[in-house]
């Protein structure tokens, strides 16, 4: 029996509990005697703190504790570490609570713990902080201007780090070019905005002293390590459990101050303490992403062949560098060349501090920014040299025989090496799916009648997993049921179903005999978590190897029981049997019982039908895709209507195509949201103008298209499943493809799209300005 479950559109094992309201999200966990925390937060973008007086708050009804940084840490308060540093990064870390200065609206200043959330919030009104407001830096330009307010004494020009990296001889490439096309692109600040905000519940076991922390997160083991380090505790005294998580999209891959302060508060008061973020807190304090200004140039031969590229990227980092603050700019600068043959490239990164919530990865993490700039510039370049944008891409895309292709670039996460795939064939499939030639003919005809139809193409690659490892344990109990425990920490992706499919193929047992659990530091000692599209590759491979070894062990036990050699035992539908003698067989349950301690197993064999495996690798596979969108722009209003959306993807071997397609469409929704609607807006004083879901526009069911999906499966040679992640591809391509389609619809007016979001007013203004310029 070969693989039968991998590749199947299996209904998700997670769904019944979620559909009936039985899922256990962090706020659904209700412990007796729980206190509730509220955070006193800065109303200023930038201010010195002259004093904090919590005495009236402490005396308020129901208040059990209230503390500032100096109350909690009178001597040397710890700061949140940077986990992926780059050379030259100047220190600008964040304390768990503001010490003597606040640097963004919403930065936590004090914690109040009371018998209920209402009482904690009532008491907050009585807390007094004496602020001396300072000029706020609301844009990267103002932060880099001479004489600008300095946000950190350690960073005299508000540039926390700058670096360059590249390949080949860029000067020569540009000197000898027939054409050089350059432009500047700006992507706005936007972020993940999961429907469930952040939240933490912590309690200390009165018997053994263990601190248990439930957090809506994405990396419980890292959270445990960092919490222990910041609180000066031993790791083994902390248990972090990630319950059901209502979306993460990268913004919960972070050690937030609250993640540490809630356990700290629980230790102080000796009772469970819970904090559930409200939506305003979320918009103000969740990590932000995307805001970059990108200067990009491409040097071309007369026939459109790319000779080289130059990029200068300014990344708005907000008020502090947090754990993963370098990741977005690093992935962006190494994603610019993408799936094209570009042998001469130089990129410069400038990380600027401003009075905004700190920035950190969100779905795509630098990919959307880089791909937006590149794919925009390529459309402009093609237009400038009179070439069709599809033909321009066909000319420069890497051929299949170039694989594996080492770009020579290295990010803080991995080397950029494309491991497999036929990129030109994928581009052709997407062009065929949308009937590219047919569209161009219709577009010209419709334009004469005043209809503004446009088509955008986006070709992209994405880092499709990241190391260094992930864990999985596969254990068969005496009843023959299989339990999988992994250190991965999914947030709704359906990973439990995918891993069960992997196990079902190896052990040949039905899915309903398999349970999969995740993200509990007490259940598995090491784990990395869920981000960077890594679950299928990392947790999937760990599960595959563990379940193969469980089967091998079961066969060894069967051979022992049957007094046969292992070579004479075969595995068939969850049982081991003597080859050719069907009645000489043992079920999985019997084998698990025999393998148990005190059972009947081969001498020297470790007891237990269980294997824990760590799949370790530093090599990241890369997925590839082509998205093509057709839009129509309403000439009177600038409103953009997406008419068709084609998505071709190659993410290696598909474990569950239904889940993969859900990830693709969901990612596209976020890319389209960024292209058309979403923006975290700050005014010149550093006040956020979009701190609720009425002002921050998430896409609704009326804003998004039905996506037409196709796949190719080029197995990755880098892992035993042949898988590549795809969770971020839609968010990467979705933004750029809509921007390209909108420009294509209005390019004949002379309008050029250089920034997003393309809300109706912005598109209308582009058309008006272009029209005014041309008349």
């Amino acid at each position, binding site marked *: 029996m070969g693989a039968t479950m991998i590749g199947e559109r299996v209904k998700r094992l997670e769904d019944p509990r979620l559909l009936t*309201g039985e899922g256990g*999200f962090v706020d659904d966990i*209700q412990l007796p005697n729980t206190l509730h925390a509220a955070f006193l937060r800065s109303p200023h973008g930038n201010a010195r703190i002259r004093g904090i007086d919590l005495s009236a708050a402490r005396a308020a009804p129901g208040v059990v504790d209230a503390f500032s940084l100096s109350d909690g840490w009178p001597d040397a308060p710890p700061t949140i570490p940077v986990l992926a540093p780059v050379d030259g990064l100047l220190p600008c870390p964040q304390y768990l609570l503001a010490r003597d200065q606040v640097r963004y609206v919403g930065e936590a200043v004090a914690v109040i713990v009371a018998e209920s959330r209402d009482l904690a919030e009532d008491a907050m009104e009585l807390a007094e902080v004496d602020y001396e407001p300072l000029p706020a830096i609301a844009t990267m330009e103002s932060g880099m201007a001479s004489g600008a307010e300095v946000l950190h004494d350690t960073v005299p020009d508000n540039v926390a780090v700058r670096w360059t990296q590249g390949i080949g001889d860029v000067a020569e490439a540009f000197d000898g070019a027939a054409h050089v096309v350059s432009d500047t692109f700006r992507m706005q600040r936007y972020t993940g905005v999961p429907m469930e905000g952040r939240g933490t519940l912590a309690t200390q076991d009165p018997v053994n002293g263990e601190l248990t922390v439930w957090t809506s997160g994405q990396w419980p083991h890292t959270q445990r390590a960092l919490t222990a380090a910041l609180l000066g505790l031993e790791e083994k005294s902390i248990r972090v459990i990630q319950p059901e998580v209502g979306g993460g999209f990268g913004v919960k891959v972070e050690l937030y101050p609250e993640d540490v302060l809630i356990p700290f508060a629980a230790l102080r008061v000796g009772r469970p303490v819970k904090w559930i973020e409200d939506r305003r807190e979320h918009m103000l304090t969740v990590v932000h992403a995307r805001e970059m200004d990108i200067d990009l140039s491409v040097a071309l031969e007369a026939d459109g062949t790319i000779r080289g590229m130059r990029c200068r990227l300014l990344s708005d980092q907000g008020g502090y560098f947090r754990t993963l603050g370098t990741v977005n700019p690093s992935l962006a600068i190494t994603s610019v060349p993408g799936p094209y043959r570009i042998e001469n490239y130089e990129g410069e990164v400038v990380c600027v501090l401003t009075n905004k919530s700190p920035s950190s990865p969100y779905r795509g993490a630098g990919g959307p920014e880089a791909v937006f700039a590149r794919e925009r510039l390529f459309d402009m370049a093609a237009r400038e040299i009179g070439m069709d944008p599809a033909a321009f891409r066909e000319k420069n895309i890497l051929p299949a025989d170039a694989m594996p292709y080492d770009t020579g670039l290295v990010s803080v996460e991995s080397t950029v090496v494309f491991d497999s795939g036929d990129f030109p064939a994928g581009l052709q499939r997407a062009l065929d799916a949308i009937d590219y030639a047919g569209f161009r003919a219709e577009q010209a005809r419709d334009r004469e009648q005043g209809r503004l139809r446009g088509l955008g193409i986006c070709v992209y690659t994405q880092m499709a997993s990241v190391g260094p490892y992930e864990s999985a344990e596969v254990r068969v109990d005496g009843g023959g049921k299989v339990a999988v425990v992994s250190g991965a920490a999914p947030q*709704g992706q359906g990973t439990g179903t995918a891993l069960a499919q992997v196990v079902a193929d190896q052990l040949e047992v039905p899915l309903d005999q398999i349970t999969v659990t995740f993200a509990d530091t007490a259940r598995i000692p090491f784990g990395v978590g869920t981000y960077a599209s890594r679950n299928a590759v990392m947790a999937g491979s760990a599960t595959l190897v563990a379940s193969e070894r469980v089967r091998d062990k079961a066969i060894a036990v069967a051979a022992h029981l049957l007094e046969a050699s292992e070579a004479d035992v075969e595995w068939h539908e969850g049982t081991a049997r003597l080859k050719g003698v069907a009645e000489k067989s043992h079920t999985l349950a019997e084998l698990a019982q025999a393998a148990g301690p005190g059972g009947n197993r081969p001498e020297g064999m470790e007891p237990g039908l269980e294997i824990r495996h760590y799949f370790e690798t530093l090599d990241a596979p890369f997925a590839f895709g082509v998205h093509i969108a057709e839009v129509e722009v309403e000439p009177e209003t600038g409103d953009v209507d997406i008419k068709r959306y084609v998505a071709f993807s190659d993410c290696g071997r598909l474990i569950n195509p239904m889940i993969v397609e859900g990830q693709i469409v969901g990612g596209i929704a976020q890319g389209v949201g960024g292209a058309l609607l979403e923006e975290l807006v700050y005014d010149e004083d550093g006040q956020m103008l979009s701190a609720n879901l009425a002002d921050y526009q998430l896409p*609704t*069911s009326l804003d998004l298209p039905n996506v037409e999906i196709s796949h190719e499966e080029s197995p990755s040679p880098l892992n035993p499943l042949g898988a590549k992640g795809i969770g971020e591809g839609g968010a990467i391509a979705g933004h750029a493809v809509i921007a390209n389609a909108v420009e294509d619809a209005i390019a004949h007016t002379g309008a050029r799209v250089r920034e997003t979001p393309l809300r109706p007013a912005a598109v209308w203004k582009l058309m008006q300005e272009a029209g005014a310029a041309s008349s």
Partner: protein
Amino acid sequence: MDNERNIDVTVNGRSHSANVPARRRLSEFIRDDLGLTGTHVGCEHGVCGTCTVQLDGETVRSCLMFAVQADGAEIMTVEGLADGGALHPIQEAFWQEHGLQCGFCTPGILMTVHEFLLENKGPLEEEIRHALSGNLCRCTGYQNIVKAVETADRLWER
């Protein structure tokens, strides 16, 4: 506690009589007092639709109502959909069509769809999209939710 009021409500067919503070929101009453945590809270300002429940057969945002305003009402939450172990046809359809990922917004969407399908048979895609437009989902892009509503329309004999 000051400012408490007694309310009588029926939730998923079961009667409850409770003293609640005047400022207690219906969402808090359902989740914290009754322990029905299937109703989730996503924004607390009435935009996302996650906390949607049915009050006397009509959808409301339970984060925008005080519990005292529900006095005398019949409430249905997501926990009231399935019949014992048997999923409601709407739930079956969402399962079949992969109409959910993280599942956080799902209870509110199920409540909205239940009301919509009781009032509409054989709805067009455009009508379904309008009906869903007050419920935000950040995971799915709505495509499979729309499909799930179409499937539920076929599965649910009503």
